[in-house]
């Protein structure tokens, strides 16, 4: 099947209004939230229904063409990077809220529905959807499912995988599969658990059943300023050690504070580090624990404590934090956003190490992180116009991941492996580990048609016997350009 035939068949599947073939228009989709990698897809289709999505996947199967599914394209690891010879399936038009079931605390949505939209649907009834990635105003539930998205509040409430109870999938062979639903503990393998976070490599979710939660009776938010990250880190340890599980504990260092101030003026104190601690739950409980948290922060050397007086002030505290990535653009022409995880207790040591490595390379690193669960987001600042800086920044960014691994952590806490980090996955997992994961891939997608070339560096082909490793054909073809 040549490109013209493929286009004709795809147009039959999605209708003439659901296909994009002009190079100018295709360019819109050349990258996701990680703009360093760009590939113009062969064709873009925009199905509006499960049947259309299924039709597209079937055409891909018949044509032997790979596909990449994409939600809003906000991912930060190149997971939705298109393939030059592949079909990009954009799910943004599948955005119906299929069902709101308050008595059972479930909402069923199509994958293009935005994360925040779920909460908006149920907020008038006193409910919300817990996973809250910083991009929640624009990211889609389908993308959240692919990436197992987290957010600031996952310390207490868990990640996307803890909130998905049902999935309708279009498998890479074009067949449908329905997993779970509203009832707990469905018999059989937990394929929802395998699918959520598989970064588009196991098929396409066309309907998602999510759990919604009752809004807590009380929410209290504290902004605490410290001289440095050591003191702030001590406060975090103190809070966790006291048996308190806050809804969120976020830390920003001096450089991140400076950036946030320059961009969105959250009026943070002038400090070496700030913590945002949020507690929620039944009012009497929150009150007692909040007092404990204040005392712990003071004992750890807090220089200033501010309590959000109302929702408006709380929103301002959070605005500085949630816009931190973009805000760094105010203080540096270029920067890398990194995502690594360490055991929380290693925080002070790892921060010192990062700071030392940055100094060695003459670079600055702004640190923003989910301190409660040890998820670091170092932002490596550089100026591409200065010769050699970009390369040094890239090296430093990678070195930070290796530090995370040396401390028993992970190369990604929430942004995913995608295209960006697949070469680092073998540093976290052995060849046997990766081959075993690959068995899942082979069960779902034996022909490696769904988002090939992502997550795994050089996957063994399904059916291949263990032996010398080969370069995957997708990589050999050099389907991605690295800028």
């Amino acid at each position: 099947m040549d490109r013209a035939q493929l286009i004709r068949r795809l147009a039959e599947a999605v209708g003439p209004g659901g296909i994009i073939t002009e190079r100018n228009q295709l360019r819109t989709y050349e990258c996701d939230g990680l703009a360093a990698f760009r590939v113009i897809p062969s064709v873009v289709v925009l199905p509006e229904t499960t049947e259309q999505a299924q039709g597209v996947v079937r055409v891909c199967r018949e044509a032997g063409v790979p596909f990449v599914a994409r939600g809003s394209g906000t991912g930060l690891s190149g997971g939705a990077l298109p393939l030059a010879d592949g079909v990009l399936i954009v799910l943004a038009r599948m955005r119906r809220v299929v069902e709101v079931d308050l008595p059972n605390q479930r909402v069923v949505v199509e994958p293009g529905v935005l994360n925040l939209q779920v909460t908006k649907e149920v907020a008038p009834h006193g409910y919300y959807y817990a996973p809250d990635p910083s991009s929640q105003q624009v990211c889609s539930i389908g993308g959240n499912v692919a990436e197992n998205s987290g957010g600031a509040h996952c310390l207490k409430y868990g990640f996307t995988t803890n909130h998905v109870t049902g999935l309708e999938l279009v498998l890479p062979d074009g067949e449908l599969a329905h997993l779970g639903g509203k009832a707990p503990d469905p018999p059989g393998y937990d394929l929802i658990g395998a699918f959520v976070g598989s970064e588009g490599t196991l098929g396409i979710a066309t309907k998602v059943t999510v759990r919604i939660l009752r809004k807590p009776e009380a929410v209290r938010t504290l902004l605490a300023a410290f001289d440095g990250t050591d003191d702030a880190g001590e406060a975090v340890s103190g809070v966790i050690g006291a048996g308190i599980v806050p809804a969120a504990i976020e830390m920003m260092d001096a450089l991140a504070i400076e950036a946030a101030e320059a961009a969105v003026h959250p009026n943070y104190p002038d400090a070496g580090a700030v913590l945002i601690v949020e507690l929620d739950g039944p009012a009497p409980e929150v009150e007692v624990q909040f007092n404990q948290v204040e005392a712990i922060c003071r004992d750890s050397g807090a220089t200033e404590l501010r309590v959000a007086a109302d929702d408006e002030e709380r929103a301002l505290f959070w605005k500085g934090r949630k816009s931190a990535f973009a805000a760094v653009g105010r203080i540096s022409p270029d920067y890398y956003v990194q995502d690594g995880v360490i055991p929380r207790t290693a925080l002070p040591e790892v921060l010192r190490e990062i700071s030392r490595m940055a100094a060695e390379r003459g670079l600055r690193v702004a640190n923003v992180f989910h301190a409660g669960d040890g998820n670091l987001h170092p932002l490596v600042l550089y100026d591409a116009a200065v010769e050699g800086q970009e390369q040094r920044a890239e090296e430093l960014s990678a070195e930070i991941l290796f530090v995370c691994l040396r401390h028993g952590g992970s190369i990604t806490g929430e942004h995913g492996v995608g295209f960006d980090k697949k070469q680092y996955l073998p540093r976290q997992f052995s060849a046997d580990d990766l081959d075993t994961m690959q068995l899942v891939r082979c069960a779902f997608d034996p022909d490696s048609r769904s988002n090939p070339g992502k997550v795994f560096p050089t996957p063994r082909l399904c059916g291949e016997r263990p032996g010398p490793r080969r370069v995957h054909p997708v990589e050999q073809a050099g389907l991605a350009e690295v800028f």
Partner: protein
Amino acid sequence: MAFELPGGVASRPATEADAVDGVQPELVAEPATVEEAAAVLREATAAGKRVVCRGAGTKLGWGNPPTGAEIILSSARLDRILEHAEGDLIVKAEAGVPLEALQAAVGEAGQLLALNPPSAGGGATLGGIVAANASGSWRLRYGTVRDLLIGITVVLADGTIAHAGGKVVKNVAGYDLGKLFTGSLGTLGLIAEVTFRLHPRTPDRATTRLRLEPDRPEQAGAAVSAILGSQLVPTTLDLHWPDPAGHGTLLLSFEGTAPGPVDQAKAAAALLGLGEGEGPGERPGEGPGKNGTPPPEGGPPDFNLSAREPWLPRLSTGKASETGVLVKAACAPSELPGAIRDLWEAAGTHGLRAGLAGQPGSVVLYATLDGGGADALVGAVEEARKRLLGRGGSLVVLGAPLEVKRRLDVWGPVGDALPLMRRVKERFDPNGTMSPGRFVGGI
């Protein structure tokens, strides 16, 4: 030809007590390391032997009878707690560690693994609990195994040792094999090591009890719906209804920091229309106390109603009765009253007695159907299952006399995902070594 274990691996000939649903194994292997376990599996697969993994054996009656089981792979010697990082609230242990032993160890740091399946009292091991996806009353607040397991080491039938996840709670690198193995009942491989996130123990507790009128499951439904729709945060919500003609009980517990639990218990009592004095009960001194002494026997605080019920012994021991079946029914909360009636009526029309206990907030209900012959038991299970499937739920048989089991699929249908599940099994265990026939669709 007699099968010989790799050198150095402890083993003994199997006895009748090692039989799995009437299938008599030849020997019991007790590897002391993950590498030894890998050697056992590699050799067993090469020799065409079939293997059933076993922890304490408390849930060995779950699943369909295996189509063969020459070797029992016991985790008895894989019993080390490998790492307890108190400050990070995580613990890594070998699969053969009993849950109660783990609770005692982490309890010293004022922490707990928030799982309390009834089988814990029977010595259930971590590996067995993960393999069976066993849960208890804490599931309402803390979730189930899938919400707490953050890392896993498995051994495949060909001897491959593989890891997934890690020891940090937040981690999206690679596929989540931990969830895939959770509830897989030993059909994909041996679960050899597990890493869990822990929770702090809560210092204070209070309870509220609601008496339910005979034959009025709608009352339970309304109460559960009122609690779930409120801003209360119960730690447990248990239902106990030994006989439809008698009263049932809903028991709520609230755990946290004083005065929170007592306030919440009072609010729950008010919400449920209970008068002063008949609702909340505070139990000072019973809480584990994060800085105090661990509770008796070092176990978690026991509010696991179903674990304490003498009429549900099979939940904690895994021993099947000769006259009854034990089933697990699951559905969405709005279906609770209907599901209770389904179970009662399916039992009633076949002349059986039905007793219920479980977690109506989820909804997961365990029921014993007793007092009849095999025809009545099979008939009641099939009828109850048909009705629960109609409600979007499921009914799984957890224990039954062998004669009954052989006439039933203990799992029931799993829908259009079955071909995919078969493909997963074929990839992980192409020779059908691991617990063949025990899982859904004969996997």
